């Protein structure tokens, strides 16, 4: 059961990440490939606060979200000058730069030595030390995130976002200032990713920069495309699929020499076939 609980926790964390990115990419149409940086910022802030100052997890997570929000605000400002492909490029430049900071600013992050001994969350004297209880915590936070984003997207705010995705210029004609909305959603997305980071740090109790490389951002993007852009349930589904698929393939009995590579092959093929034959993803409402 432990193995399954572990997978479920991972799915939960990546589902939160997927939902957070979907707000930016799916609903607003901004091709952001830097979510792993915010994930990392949340993880590191939480880890440092927990290890060095013994701050309560929930407080640390909130501080992490605020800090990430501030940094993402600045990044979002810079990115707002770009469109389309250049937005993507600019965003993953930031991912690489922030990763370099995690890796090289050793005075703070201890670089590749990583931060061990991150404690599990505790609330009113009860600690979430069993993995099952941590799973419940993760699922609760996922639910909260889901409800919050759902509320956001069906509100008038959400309608403006969709309008930005469809036709930004038309929106401006009506007197809206898209840049404000884009910034706000970018920051919200970043803060939610930071929440996922806090969960991750506390679950795995040891973090190092390698978990926040560019590839993670691409992975999260693949999750939401697979699940279906602008569909929150789809993001959860996408996370389920992309995390569980490699695990299921473990049991398929590829010769162990090439098993790992075969998983990559399958992964690549899935991406290609998905784009060829069902780009709107599993739940798709937004046809890419």
């Amino acid at each position, binding site marked *: 059961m432990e193995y399954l609980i572990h*997978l479920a926790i991972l799915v939960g964390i990546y589902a939160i990440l997927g939902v957070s990115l979907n707000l930016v990419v799916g609903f607003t149409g901004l091709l952001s490939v830097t979510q792993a940086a915010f994930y990392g910022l949340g993880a590191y802030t939480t880890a440092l606060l927990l290890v060095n100052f013994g701050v309560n997890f929930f407080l640390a997570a909130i501080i992490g979200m605020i800090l990430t929000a501030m940094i993402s605000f600045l990044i979002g400002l810079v990115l707002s000058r770009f469109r389309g492909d250049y937005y993507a490029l600019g965003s993953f430049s930031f991912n690489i730069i922030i990763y370099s900071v995690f890796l090289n600013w050793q005075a703070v992050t201890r670089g590749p030595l990583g931060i061990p001994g991150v404690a599990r969350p505790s609330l009113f004297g009860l600690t979430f030390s069993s993995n099952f209880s941590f799973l419940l915590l993760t699922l609760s936070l996922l639910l909260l995130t889901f409800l919050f984003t759902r509320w956001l997207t069906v509100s008038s705010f959400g309608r403006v976002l969709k309008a930005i995705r469809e036709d930004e210029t038309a929106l401006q004609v009506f007197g809206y200032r898209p840049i404000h909305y884009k910034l706000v959603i970018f920051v919200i997305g970043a803060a939610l990713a930071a929440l996922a980071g806090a969960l991750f740090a506390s679950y795995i109790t040891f973090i190092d920069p*390698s978990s926040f490389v560019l590839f993670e951002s691409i992975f999260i993007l693949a999750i939401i495309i697979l699940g279906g852009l602008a569909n929150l349930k789809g993001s959860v589904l996408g996370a389920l699929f992309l995390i569980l698929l490699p695990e299921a393939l473990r049991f398929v009995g590829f010769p*162990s020499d090439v098993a790992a*590579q075969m998983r990559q092959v399958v992964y690549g093929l899935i991406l290609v076939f998905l784009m060829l034959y069902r780009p709107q993803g599993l739940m798709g409402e937004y046809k890419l």
Partner: protein
Amino acid sequence: MKNLIWIIVILVIIGGGWWFNQQPETSPAADEPIKIGLIMPLSGELGVFGTNVKKGVEIALEQKNVSTSSIRLISEDSGAFTTNAAFTAFKKVVDVDDVDVIIGPFGPAQTLTIAPNIGTTSPVVISVSNCDERFKEYPTLFCIYPGITDQVLGAVDFMTARDWRKVYLLTENTEFGILVENLLKQQTNRVNLVGSDKVVPNQTKDFRTLITKAVAASPDVVYAMFAPNEGFVILRQFPPLAKGIPLYIGTDINKNQLLDIFGQNAPGVYFATRIDEQYEEDFTRRFKEVTGNEPDYFAALGHSTMVILLDGLERANNDIQKLPEALTNIVDPITAVRDFKFTDDRTVSVPLDSYEFKSGRFVRLGE
């Protein structure tokens, strides 16, 4: 369509969970095979090293005529650099396969990630990693890569014996490299670290300017400590830029690669590495038969680890509780790596020598 997908997903999850729970979760009885989980990188940049460890392990099992009814080997991919994959692999072999011993994971970061989850008695974990101070708190955790302290101090011995006092360090921006740098800095009464520079693994491999900078600082020697792929590149890019300054490099490389890079002779290059021209003969021969290549240090490590493990299991009568103690009491095994054994604090002690490469062979140097 949408609802159909949801129904399928939920059914699959329920079905999968039910199937998993049906798997027997018995602890090993006397007639059940001992299960060994091998968690190594089998794909990605480090994939070839993990695969070689696996091959070394398999050859050892074959040589000792171990049948699958007494020992079962389960291999999982730990991925190269991220800790998630190693952690998941660990969970899988512990929970689903119920292994008694784990060989792996690879490197301190992956090991530290799983360490808090090792029980106090089982499984016994033999990590393919440099021994780290923090491993000591886990009584069933062993490490089989010579400690960084040993390596650096040995290197300093070598350098001072040649009167090379001014040292420039080139290494990687990983746990390994940082510890090397810190250790060197502490040796102020023996060598003078005139400068150091690091590379980030996994990037475009262009170290020319780093080498240029190092050489321009006019050290007596450039000391390089790298993982195998980067080490290869340094050996490739250093010679034209050397300007007569010797290179003393600690990395894992095999003879074929050196022949490709240097031909028969590598002048001005000294190897602070655990190359043994002569790994144990039977092992070397079998490895060549199976893969067509010369074995490297990782394959030899895999072999040696398995030999010791088998010996330890025998001594402990297959009682995993007694295994850690048995492992530290092995005497004179025939392992691929010369004189490989565990010390009392569950690290490994391996003689460290220095070599030159002449006439197509490694020539061991006196101190």
